């Protein structure tokens, strides 16, 4: 059956939706949706066709928007995004994951919420903020945010989350308890001798390898990493890349050894693509060696960055790879990164990109 490829884009000024067919050559673009609120993450559930968008505005606080008709109509809920009285309130919803009939939401200040009724009401997963390291969590440039939620595909009790700046945490008991999973990742901004703490790493993004739930890839403030044991021990895979700094990571949808990063020039050098030349870097051997993918990307005077949730893959046989810049340009590749085209431009700052492939 023919497919519709839906590209879901979260921006500083609302949600946008791009659509193509399996050829992925011609794209239509519509939006902004969600009342042009700042939207940090948009995901789609291919099983139902439902779209969820997480964000928050300064006036009315955190919300999750939902559309069951590919963006034609939307509902919104902020029900239950409550911390205990006296604590700093939830400011914004930052990340989403739908799995095993539940919708998980990461928020700022960092915490995890879950909805069992498809995004109508949300309940705080209190155990995460009860972790003994909680008092040491500090905001990064984007705030104290829970930005990555990685559910186990088969075990509904197992889940990884990542917080900037606190690190990676894992639960194996459905959120009753969380333990830190940061061994081997560097907190390079700390003094010598203190750079490998149990928590406090500035993790920027984690993703799961296709078909290997024990393998995760991580972009950190200082370094790129892989683990093959659910995060018990991370190893550096940054050798061969132009810098240790970047935000997004994307795992190939079918090959556990293939992963994509977009290294930037550095944390204090402007956070641009290096030398004003844009490239996505791909490894086909789990991070042992790297290739720069540049065809179709600007190779002079490019001074943009790509934010932590703004790169994605689709799940077609020849995978599509997509990323959006903080200058509002959306790029896509229909051949696994070998060649790139502009899908949209002049958009607001792009916070996130995700895909949903459904039957036509």
């Amino acid at each position, binding site marked *: 059956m023919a497919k519709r490829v839906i590209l879901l884009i979260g921006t500083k000024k609302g949600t946008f939706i791009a659509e193509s067919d399996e050829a992925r050559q011609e794209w239509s673009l519509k939006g902004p949706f969600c009342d042009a609120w700042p939207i940090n993450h948009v995901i789609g559930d291919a099983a139902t066709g439902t779209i969820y968008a997480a964000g928050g505005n*300064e006036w*009315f606080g955190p919300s999750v928007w939902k559309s069951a008709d590919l963006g034609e109509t939307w509902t*919104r809920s*902020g*029900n239950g*995004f409550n911390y*205990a*009285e006296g604590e700093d309130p*939830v400011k914004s919803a930052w990340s989403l994951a739908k799995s095993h009939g539940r919708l998980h939401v990461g928020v700022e200040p960092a915490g995890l919420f879950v909805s069992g009724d498809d995004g109508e009401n949300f309940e705080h997963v209190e155990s995460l903020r009860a972790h003994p390291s909680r008092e040491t969590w500090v905001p990064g440039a984007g705030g104290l945010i829970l930005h990555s939620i990685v559910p186990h595909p088969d075990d509904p009790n197992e889940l990884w989350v990542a917080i900037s700046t606190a690190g990676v945490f894992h639960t194996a008991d459905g959120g009753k308890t969380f333990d830190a999973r940061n061994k081997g990742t560097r907190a390079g901004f700390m003094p010598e001798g203190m750079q490998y703490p149990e928590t406090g790493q500035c993790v920027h993004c984690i993703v799961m390898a296709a078909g290997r739930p024990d393998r995760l890839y991580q972009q950190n403030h200082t370094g790129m990493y892989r683990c093959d044991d659910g995060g018990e021990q991370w190893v550096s895979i940054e050798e061969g890349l132009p810098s240790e700094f970047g935000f997004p990571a994307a795992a190939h949808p079918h090959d556990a050894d293939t992963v994509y990063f977009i290294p930037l020039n550095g944390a204090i050098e402007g956070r641009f693509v290096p030398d004003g030349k844009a490239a996505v870097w791909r490894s086909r051997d789990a991070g042992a060696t790297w290739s720069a993918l540049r065809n179709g990307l600007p190779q002079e005077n490019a001074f943009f960055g790509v934010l932590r949730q703004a790169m994605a893959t689709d799940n077609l046989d020849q995978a599509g790879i997509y990323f959006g810049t903080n200058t509002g340009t959306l790029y896509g590749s229909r051949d696994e990164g070998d060649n790139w085209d502009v899908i949209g431009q002049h958009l607001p700052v792009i916070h996130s990109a995700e895909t949903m492939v459904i039957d036509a």
Partner: protein
Amino acid sequence: MRERSDSACDVVLPDALLRLFPQAKRRLTVSAADVGGLIDALDERWPGMGACLRDSRPAVRKHISIMIDGERAVLETPIASGTTVYVLTAVSGG
């Protein structure tokens, strides 16, 4: 603490809030003892509106102003009969 009794007041809601609750009225009459009670009354009529105006501290949201007699009110601010309460969105954004 002395228990306050409800007073009827006029409430004026901002455009940005009405976009989220299209069935709500721009101007309506509500009976409440204080601003917290007024938000409860709005939430009862239009579920979810309360969370848009009051956070979990609890306090009026940082970028919402609730004005009574020219002063910015807090949740405990009493409501006098016949007054007009303006709910305003701060001039924030970017």
